[in-house]
């Protein structure tokens, strides 16, 4: 499965990559993040806390106008992400007032 992923600028700096990338991955959050970390080791620990394996609190996952952040990491991604018509967006949450 190929999945389009949009990365925030902080992570693009580390990975030296474009805003949008395409990864071969199982179509779940966990599968996509695993694939990103394998391809870009510089991003290990930036999306998920390496100690807990959980999504970092200020990292959000959006797709198709929905917030997927609180869904199970093993839940299937929306069909529009699976068929490539929509990207999975990894977003640094608005925070700071």
């Amino acid at each position, binding site marked *: 499965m190929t999945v389009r992923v949009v990365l*925030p*600028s*902080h*992570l693009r*700096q*580390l990975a030296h990559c474009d805003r949008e990338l395409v990864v071969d991955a199982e179509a779940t959050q966990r599968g996509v993040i695993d694939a990103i970390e394998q391809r870009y*080791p*510089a*991003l*290990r*620990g*930036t*999306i998920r*806390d*390496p*100690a807990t394996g959980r999504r*970092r609190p*200020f*990292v959000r996952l959006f797709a198709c106008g929905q917030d997927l952040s609180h869904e199970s990491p093993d839940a299937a991604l929306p069909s529009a992400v699976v068929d490539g018509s929509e990207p999975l967006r990894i977003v*640094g*949450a608005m*925070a700071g007032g």
Partner: protein
Amino acid sequence: MGGVRVLVGTRKGAFILTSDEQRRDWRVDGPHFAGWEVYHVAGSPADPDRIWAAPSGGWFGQVIQRSDDGGRTWEAVGNDFSYASPAGEHQWYDGTLRPWEFARVWHLEPSPTDPDLVYAGIQDAALFRSVDGGVSWHELAGLREHGSGPQWQPGAGGMCLHTIVLHPTNPDRMTVAISAAGVFRTDDGGTSWRPINQGLLSDGIPSPAADVGHCVHNLAMHPARPDTVYMQKHWDVMRSDDGGEHWREISGNLPSDFGFPIAVHAHEPDTVYVVPITSDSHHFPPEGKLRVYRSRSGGDKWEALTEGLPQQNCYVDVLRDAMAVDTLDDCGVYFGTTGGQVYGSADSGDTWQPIVRDLPPVLSVEVQTL
């Protein structure tokens, strides 16, 4: 190539300032890691092209980056700082116990001789070592586990291991400082540790002369005289002449003995620099005058260095890792402020010039003499 390279960590990235031996004209490169908080950037004395940086942030955690070309390009190295054993608990602000939890890297200390050996001081306080250039990190857990850990508590900035002093000739001896726990030393390469805080007095803790609990802000040592260690404590400037076994106060005529950094002249082990700050609640220079104080007698007698520094309406702070010296014949001294200025002196502090004025708040300053 001669000259100096000043490595600056800021709230919003890292900057590299370079100059020739005259240190009059400067090139400013950066920001590297724009948007990341860079608590520290440090170069290897054994290979000046090798530099480590510790960007972190509330969104994406901690990463470690390494350059092998003097800061032109950077690549990620390891960022797994997992504690080596069950992490235990330490004091929290409200008197309860709280589990040790990794927050960030505060300080990187490269070996003076081995370009692959580097130490990292982290929050919650622990010491890590890498022997592969930063690819992997392993905790020296004997420090956290030596016994006094449950009495350690965070300072205002968190419970951090922020200072690592490597003995210049004895690789088995290391001295570290933790806020707010105090100074600790190993004499067996990091396996066993003990507190060395005798002589410290801190009015802000229940027992002012306690073995641990002191908010030590920074340490400095001259490599030619490694038994002499200088300390800027929360309050009090201190000195030890027996490797930290005993401390005595050398604040003397300073206008305030509160402050954060302390540094030693590259060629004069008795010449010491501090930047007095008004108080723990007023983190700005006394009277709004930014003054570095220099002692040429190893403490007690201090002179204000003001030429080229703002002497009115200045309310910046200078943080603990934000002062450093070069090793050119006429020793250069550098410091950065929370107002984003980096000042340099090419004459041991007699005169100063701003190298750059409008960076993000400066968290750290290190110097490589090339």
